[in-house]
């Protein structure tokens, strides 16, 4: 699943580049994410909560800079996580491309994401909306971080409520799928108990 986001900040390209190579600062901009302050061998451990209506999924994993092209100002990150309670996993390669002009920087964020487990059963369309909402929020927070404004503290226990972000025609489907997933889980559990 590939997604592209774009934004522009009124910050010179040099400063934007430096900030983007600071993993904890970039990770702080991920909605619902917490990160351990100290890295280990270039990898930072952390968690991320994603909530879709009644379904909250928490991932634990690592984030690292995969490569940094200082000539073309392209950096890519690798984020990998497993569900804390469940069998699913999520992994993403996030590539940021910078272009500078008149003291401002245009940032293009390309995300290539793979999700397995229960979350993947939500279906491609909904998954894309969900990931798109997370990325929109990420881009907005990253922009704030770059401008030197601390990212606002999260409401609701640090989890991003994606349900709120993808309201509209999708919400009905989301609710249906959410109910379906819950019903499936409940059934599975009943059967399992026997």
């Amino acid at each position: 699943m590939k997604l592209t986001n774009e934004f522009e900040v009124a910050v010179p390209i040099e400063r934007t580049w430096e900030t983007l190579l600071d993993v904890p600062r970039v990770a702080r901009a991920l909605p619902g994410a917490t990160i351990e302050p100290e890295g280990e061998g270039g990898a930072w451990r952390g968690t991320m909560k994603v909530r879709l209506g009644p379904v909250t999924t928490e991932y634990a994993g690592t984030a690292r800079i995969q490569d940094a092209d200082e000539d073309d100002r392209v950096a890519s990150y690798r984020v990998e996580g497993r569900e804390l309670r469940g069998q699913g996993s999520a992994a993403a390669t996030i590539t940021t491309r910078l272009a500078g002009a008149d003291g401002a920087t245009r940032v293009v964020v390309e995300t290539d994401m793979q999700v397995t487990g229960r979350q993947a059963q939500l279906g491609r369309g909904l998954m894309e909306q969900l990931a798109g909402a997370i990325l929109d929020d990420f881009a907005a927070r990253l922009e704030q971080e770059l401008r030197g404004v601390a990212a606002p503290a999260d409401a609701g226990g640090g989890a991003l409520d994606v349900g709120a972000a993808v309201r509209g025609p999708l919400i009905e489907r989301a609710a249906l799928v959410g109910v379906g997933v819950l019903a499936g889980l409940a059934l599975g559990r009943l059967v399992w108990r026997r």
Partner: protein
Amino acid sequence: MKPAPFHYEAPRTVAAALALLGADAKILAGGQSLVPIMNFRLARPATLVDVNRVDELAYLRKRDGVLHIGAMARHATLERSEMVARGWPLLRQAVRHVAHHQIRTRGTVGGSCAHGDPTAELPVALAALDARFHLRSRAGERSLGAAEFFVSHLTTALRDDELLVEIEVPPLPAAARTAFAEHARTHGDWAIAGAAVVVAPGHAAIALLGAAPTPLRASEAEAVLAAGGDAAEAARLAGALADGEWRTALTTALVRRALAEAGA
């Protein structure tokens, strides 16, 4: 089996790691070669200096067209990097032959080079790419080419007090094409023979795997090819560097295959 008892250190900086190095210490990188050797009690270092927590060594960077590979960059990171695939496709071609996915997730580029196994893929690819190896000790820093860095079976120019910190790879010549071919009994097993090639107008590099106790550049074959000579002749010359009839035949065939893939 379990390893013999050892003292364990896990420094967080290069400086702290260097302070711990010495005759009885061994550096632990990804551990994909060292740990099995220790488990068989073939290696019994008194001190193990684990450099997995050294942040400053885990990077892949391109600056002024030159690729800088931090010694602790993982095989998997190199494999996934689009930046590397665009500028140095040979590295991606070679790393895909390294063992299995699980091993590539832990194994490091620096560890693979410092271990000095003549059948390892990355040292051969790096030799073909004219890479430079940066070594650091408390006394200072020095940099070596592949021909000086790789000395013999499991032996490199690294002294007991030195740490391999970076591998620097120059840009490929314009319009260069690269290929990597090897033969292993089963996929992921140690290769028996192999070849990494770089072919560009007026330039040719052929590095052999398994033909000698170190990665071996086939300079005669390269000269023939760079002068616009026949690929079959170059492959024959390269194969002749390997010992024994079957190894020569195998190496010749692999060089031939790699050259064909690189369009020579």
